[in-house]
């Protein structure tokens, strides 16, 4: 029975290593910046998830204490990875692309991140701290 868990932990570790190396290799290999964004944010996060699963299993089976830390780190990483990816994509869009070079936005005439805050003056006029 122990050998089954041993095999499982080793398999998780090997998979995690492969995911991690694929993610970072995609970062230097892919040509387009927007596709380059995908390799690290998805594959590397999955790699860390594999390492944390292996660690969780190892602690539970071989050291006989269940620790919740790994689960917290996994949860935190899986929650924050899309947010950082969104921010980095926005940085790329605003530095490299204009409204004209973006692909068509479907039923709208431009992408929402290129919205100009046209009513900003009107909005800030109603605020109490905008008097000066």
């Amino acid at each position: 029975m122990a050998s089954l868990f041993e095999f499982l932990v080793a398999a998780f570790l090997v998979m995690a290593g492969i995911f991690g190396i694929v993610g970072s290799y995609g970062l230097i290999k892919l040509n387009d910046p927007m596709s380059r964004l995908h390799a690290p944010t998805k594959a590397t996060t999955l790699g860390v998830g594999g390492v944390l699963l292996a660690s969780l299993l190892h602690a539970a089976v071989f050291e006989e204490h269940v620790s919740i830390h790994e689960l917290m780190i996994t949860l935190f990483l899986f929650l924050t990875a899309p947010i950082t990816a969104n921010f980095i994509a926005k940085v790329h869009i605003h530095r490299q692309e204009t409204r004209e070079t973006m692909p068509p936005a479907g039923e709208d005439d431009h992408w929402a991140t290129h919205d100009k805050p046209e009513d900003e003056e009107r909005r800030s006029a109603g605020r109490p701290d905008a008097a000066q």
Partner: protein
Amino acid sequence: MIENAAYFAFACFALAMLMNLWKIVTAPDIADRILALDTMFINAIALMVLYGLALGTEMFFEAAMIIAMLGFVSTVAYARFILRGNIIE
């Protein structure tokens, strides 16, 4: 078996970190640099958890948690600074 798999994962994540470092040096644009730094943070977390697994201690999880939080906050702050010229408006 676990030992060999852990060595394999160590080698993979170390190589991944070197590739991130190479990308930081040669990146054409600042968005790539932010991305490579964020990936480096994630790889550092993986290396710390692996080290904790190899030594069998629980000491490294707090450090990994702190690195995870710092990585997220610093990436968002960097991207926000590039986008708006300001972190908190």
